[in-house]
């Protein structure tokens, strides 16, 4: 450990020198420019020079302010750095009490900090005072009792029964006494505190300037249950939990292959959240992996509490309404993505695992598609696409038809529409806007409310929307129907429904101002936007634009699994070939030779 710090320290020193250099050169430059300016201004005519001088002075002052500001920022950064380095390098002392005091002050007497002081050894004179530090609720208490304290207090007696034996170092305790799988020697306060925070117990003893980081993690965690956001009919039912290790193990159990690589980082200056990057070695593009790592490394935030926190930092285009990072609660779905060459990001504390890059078609795919028969899966995908179009365009189309293009409505339908618009006090667009607003509010209320109240909301909402509003003549019945169709369709799309509910408003405004012409323009804008989107370098609309014929097999149609010979091109996997094309068992193809050979 020590040489690493030394190197870090050395780097800091280098930085400091460099910084000083930069400072002096900058100062020199400013002086130079100022003198130049003055000399230039002196050459000009009197009035002009005065004006110039004033301008130059102002510019100079501005420049100076900016430079100073920059320096200030830099110096603060280096200050922080050096401070934290100093602390992290602060080694443990041999004095137990001093060590304990430092830990206590660092934690500020948190009530969950437990320090168990005890002593062990052959007799009173040669006993060793020690302390076990851990955070209540983060550790496995029975492990602490049975595997740490018990061996130390009782086991040491047995060990020391032989006259020659003696406990002279921390390493000896580690090697001979502790009955724990994961033990590490640490030297500094920071390491010690980090160990406590991640749920380990730390053993320190009088007279040793080392501590033992003993892996005894054990906190309350949710069991692996069926995910609520994605339900499966035939697929596996297990879902991710909030625990990072559980999640990675769930994926590992799907892919029993050492090629599944897991890389760990810690993000969040204050939360120190564990983040793991998963990918398949030999399939995933190494450039993609390093790009994911680079983007994660660049994040400078103080808190990462869920996947959504990271998502916004690593997106290609943060301003888009469409999701460019896919996420799922299902280990089988994520395993599938990994095997296609994608990279998964697991964040501790979130039951959602992200996968990148994401393509537009993934909005319409579910893990279930690959389990049901391909014909049915294809039909369902087409349905979802239709639902997408319906939920995006219907309100706008209705407004365009009823306020601009009445001639396009079949005559008898026009009567019905006209009849229901009789006596409605608002223009059709306003009516539609009101109903869309009411629907969004109802949906939001339904999600946030406790389940018992939620039902009341839906009943009141359905009654108010469906019946009373129409009967009272506030809105027309067709508008309610349109809203209902839109709402139902938007729930049929697995992923992009929030983008749709935003764009629906955009299209509504376009339709209100310009009719079907406006819808055309709006659709065009959306399409252009989609084509320009990227997700970790991959074209969002691939394989449709750019057109990749080989990958159409898993776009709108879901080809039979045996026909999916290659992995998606846009993800640029190292190994494009997934399998050899082989028609499943057919008597004449000789695929069933094994069976026929059976006696």
């Amino acid at each position: 450990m020590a040489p690493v710090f030394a190197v870090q320290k050395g780097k800091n020193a280098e930085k400091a020198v460099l910084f000083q250099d930069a400072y002096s050169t900058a100062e020199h430059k400013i002086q130079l420019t100022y003198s130049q300016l003055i000399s230039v201004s002196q050459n000009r005519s009197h009035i002009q020079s005065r004006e110039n001088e004033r301008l130059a002075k102002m510019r100079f002052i501005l420049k100076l302010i900016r430079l100073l500001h920059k320096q200030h920022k830099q110096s603060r950064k280096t200050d922080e750095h050096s401070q934290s380095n100093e602390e992290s390098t602060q080694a443990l002392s041999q004095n137990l009490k001093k060590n304990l005091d430092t830990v206590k002050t660092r934690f500020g007497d948190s009530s969950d900090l437990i320090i168990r002081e005890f002593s062990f050894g052959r007799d009173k004179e040669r006993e060793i005072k020690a302390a076990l530090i851990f955070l209540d609720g983060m550790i496995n208490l029975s492990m602490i009792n049975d595997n740490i304290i018990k061996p130390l207090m009782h086991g040491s007696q047995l060990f020391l029964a032989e006259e020659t034996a003696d406990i002279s170092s921390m390493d000896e305790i580690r090697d001979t006494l502790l009955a724990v799988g994961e033990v590490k020697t640490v030297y500094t306060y920071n390491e010690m505190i980090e160990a406590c925070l991640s749920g380990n117990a730390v053993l320190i003893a009088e007279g040793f300037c080392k501590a033992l980081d003993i892996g005894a993690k054990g906190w309350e965690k949710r069991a692996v249950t069926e995910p609520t956001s994605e339900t499966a009919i035939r697929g596996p039912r297990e879902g991710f939990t909030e625990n990072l290790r559980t999640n990675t193990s769930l994926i590992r159990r799907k892919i029993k292959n050492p090629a599944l690589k897991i890389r760990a980082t810690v993000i969040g200056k204050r939360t120190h959240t564990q983040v793991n990057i998963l990918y398949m070695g030999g399939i995933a593009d190494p450039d993609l992996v390093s790009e994911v790592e680079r983007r994660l490394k660049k994040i400078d935030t103080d808190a990462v509490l869920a996947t959504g926190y990271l998502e916004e930092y690593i997106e290609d285009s943060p301003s888009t309404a469409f999701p460019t990072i896919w996420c799922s609660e299902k280990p089988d779905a994520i395993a599938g993505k990994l095997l296609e060459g994608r990279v998964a990001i697991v964040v501790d504390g979130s039951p959602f695992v992200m996968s990148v890059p994401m393509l537009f078609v993934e909005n319409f795919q579910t893990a279930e598609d690959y389990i049901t028969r391909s014909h049915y899966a294809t039909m369902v995908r087409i349905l979802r696409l239709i639902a997408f179009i319906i939920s995006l365009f219907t309100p706008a189309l209705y407004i365009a038809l009823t306020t601009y293009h009445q001639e396009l409505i079949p005559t008898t339908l026009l009567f019905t529409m006209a009849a229901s618009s009789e006596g409605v006090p608002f223009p059709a667009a306003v009516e539609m806007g009101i109903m869309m607003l009411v629907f969004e509010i109802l949906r939001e209320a339904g999600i946030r409310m406790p389940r018992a109240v939620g039902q009341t909301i839906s009943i009141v909402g359905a009654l108010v929307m469906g019946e009373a509003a129409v009967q009272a003549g506030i809105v027309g019945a067709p508008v309610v129907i349109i809203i209902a169709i839109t709402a139902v369709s938007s729930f049929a799309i697995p992923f992009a429904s929030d983008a749709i509910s935003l764009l629906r408003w955009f299209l509504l405004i376009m339709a209100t101002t310009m009719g079907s012409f406006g819808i055309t323009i709006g659709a065009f804008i959306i399409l252009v936007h989609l084509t320009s989107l990227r997700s970790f370098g991959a074209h969002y609309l691939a394989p449709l634009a750019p057109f990749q014929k080989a990958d159409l097999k898993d776009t709108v149609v879901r080809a039979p699994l045996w026909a999916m010979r290659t992995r998606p091109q846009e993800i640029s996997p190292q190994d494009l070939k997934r399998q050899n094309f082989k028609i499943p068992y057919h008597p004449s193809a000789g695929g069933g030779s094994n069976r026929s050979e059976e006696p």
Partner: protein
Amino acid sequence: MTKQAAKTGRKTFLSLSASLFHKCRRRARRAAAFLLCALLVLCLCSCWSQRELNSLAIVLGTALDVGNQPDTLKLTAQVVKAADIGSGPAPQGGGAENKAYVNISHTDKSVLSVVRGVTHMQNRRLYFSHNEVLIFSSDLAKLDMAEGLDAFTRDYEARMNIYILISKGKASEILEEDVELEKLPALHISGMMENQKANSETAVVTLRDFTIATLSGSTAPVAPMVELYESERKKYAQLNGTAVFKQGKMIGELDKTQTRGLLWVTNKAKSGVMTVDTQWGQVILEILHSNSSLKPVKTEDGTIRMELTVNEDGAVESNETNENMSSLENVEMLKERMKETIRLEIEDTLEQARTLSADIFGFGEAIRRKYPKEWEKMKENWDMIFSEIELDIQVNVELHSTGILVKPVIPGGAK
């Protein structure tokens, strides 16, 4: 120390935000300008041509009559009362209160001035996109149809596939007929027109057909005629015959059989019923399929004659005699009778057309297409040539079935 830290922190924050503002200002300004421009563009068109459904008077039928002042016309527009049509049963009895429509009439010098004139009386604008029928009174048709035709063809709102009808009495009264199954007379009439394929006794003419015929010069446009008949103190509209036009004016009529004669020639008689007389009584035959082709042929001496071939497939629809019509000789006999009937119908119509000296069949058009050079010479005195032109009629009839009965239904059964 903490105080100082806080102080420096605040300072840093301030300077940081200042620099951020400085950096973003240009981009933000540019973005704001762009957004403003986009918004202004939207405002420029500002719901242009937008109209709410409840500000429209949806016109379903239009009737044109001669106005009571000289050189005026009276336009009657049938406007649907949407609120009344949406729900509830069809209006019972003649109660004017229950009607699902209102007929708005106005008299002025031109169609357009009438349409605009209606705004003096109504709070809604007449909306013609869903207009389905256009009825001219025969009085107006005999005077001049050009004005009405031009206005309805030129306007982008009115459609070209609306049906044209000529009323025997006042056109506005047709739109006031008592309707039973439909709620609106206009829909009743347009539905009736669509139903005419079943009998081939009415020339179904849309505004488009009529305009094309009018523009051709040689062809005489035709339009179906509609009249009112009274039954149990209620008035109903019915189709009867065809009006013949020449030079934009109505010059005569064809009756039902003559109309079918016309339809045989123009390849529009596709279905219907024909009654054939035999020595034992009447047999009713159904027209299953039919097609005809008309072509001009140049004879050796340089004159042009017309050749008409009619192929018709029929079936026995009903047998009023006691004879077995499925026997071979009887089938042959029926076929001959059928041929004769069709030929007679066509010749009767040709006779009437020659009396009116109106080329309702489009002989002139057919000649122009095939022999344009000869047509140039014939064009000038086409009326004279038409009255003398030779028409060869070739009728081929097939009798396909006698229905699901072989022998006639008579007491005791056939022998």
